[in-house]
């Protein structure tokens, strides 16, 4: 019973946050709303007994991403004016509305066949997960099954993820990290001589 109340409250707040982030034009406020959105998602994951995922969502989604987006905001340094106020209206809203309603109802219809949350007969529960839960402790000696799967059974997968993180760091360094070359700096200064 209390789970349902918490779920409904968190999902309602999620929807409100999402709509508010869409409607606002102040980028600073939107970044803060993104952080709140991640924190609410982390709460939902905790209710679903997935503390590892909640941990990641709270640390990465609500923590680091917010800081990085604020740093980007400080970089661009101008409040984003809504561009759609000046944009000419080239279409009526009816066609997109109909498409969205049809797609949404198809998706909702698709959820009817999904087994209930945590149902014992669900394919996710009967296939390989049972094997992990039964054997992980004997085979690896690690009580946390998530860690055993992540680092041992699916070690290749995690190696790929670490390489992806490393590649992201290298890409950011190549794009905006290192010193600007003198030639590029000079041409940029020549283009905008009045901007210090």
């Amino acid at each position: 019973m209390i789970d349902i109340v918490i779920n409904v409250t968190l999902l309602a707040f999620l929807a409100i946050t999402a709509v508010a982030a869409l409607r606002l034009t102040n980028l600073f406020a939107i970044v803060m709303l993104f952080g709140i959105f991640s924190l609410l998602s982390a709460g939902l994951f905790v209710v679903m007994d997935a503390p590892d995922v909640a941990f990641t969502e709270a640390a990465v989604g609500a923590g680091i991403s917010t800081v990085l987006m604020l740093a980007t905001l400080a970089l661009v340094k101008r409040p984003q004016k809504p561009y759609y106020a000046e944009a000419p209206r080239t279409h009526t809203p009816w066609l997109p509305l109909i498409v969205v309603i049809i797609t949404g109802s198809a998706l909702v219809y698709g959820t009817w066949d999904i087994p209930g949350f945590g149902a014992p007969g669900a394919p996710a529960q009967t296939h390989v997960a049972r094997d992990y839960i039964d054997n992980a402790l004997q085979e690896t000696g690690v009580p946390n099954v998530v860690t055993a799967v992540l680092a041992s059974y699916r070690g290749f997968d995690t190696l790929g993820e670490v390489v992806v993180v490393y590649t992201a760091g290298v890409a950011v360094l190549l794009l905006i990290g290192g010193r600007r070359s003198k030639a590029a700096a000079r041409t940029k200064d020549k283009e905008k001589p009045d901007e210090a």
Partner: protein
Amino acid sequence: MRPNLILHVVAKFVIPLIILFALYVQFHGDFGPGGGFQAGVIFSVALILYALVFGLEPAEKIIPSNWLHKLAALGVVIYAGVGVASLLLGGNYLDYTFLGSNQVAGQHLGILLVELGVGITVASVMLILFFAFAGRARK
């Protein structure tokens, strides 16, 4: 930057706790929730908080950026190196069983080392990202 006494005092109090918690999450990931990814992020948050409160230059003095570049690569090397080590000891790639005297000991050691590699790479890449963005704003 205008010094803010309350922020300085609170940050100095909180940063050691954050680092301690990161180490706990890193090395206790076998038993509780957490692991290398979360620990790396939390560890980098401690230094980002320091940079936000005390400024970018003092933070870059703690860990110079060329160290960060090498650490990010070091984590990947540790992870891949565990795989090569298990290959040389007679197992498959990333099969930790042969790292220890028996299967459980080998798996335990392998998971610990792999998570350490993950943590080092994630922490240093997060700091690289932050210093890249924040350093760009300073120019």
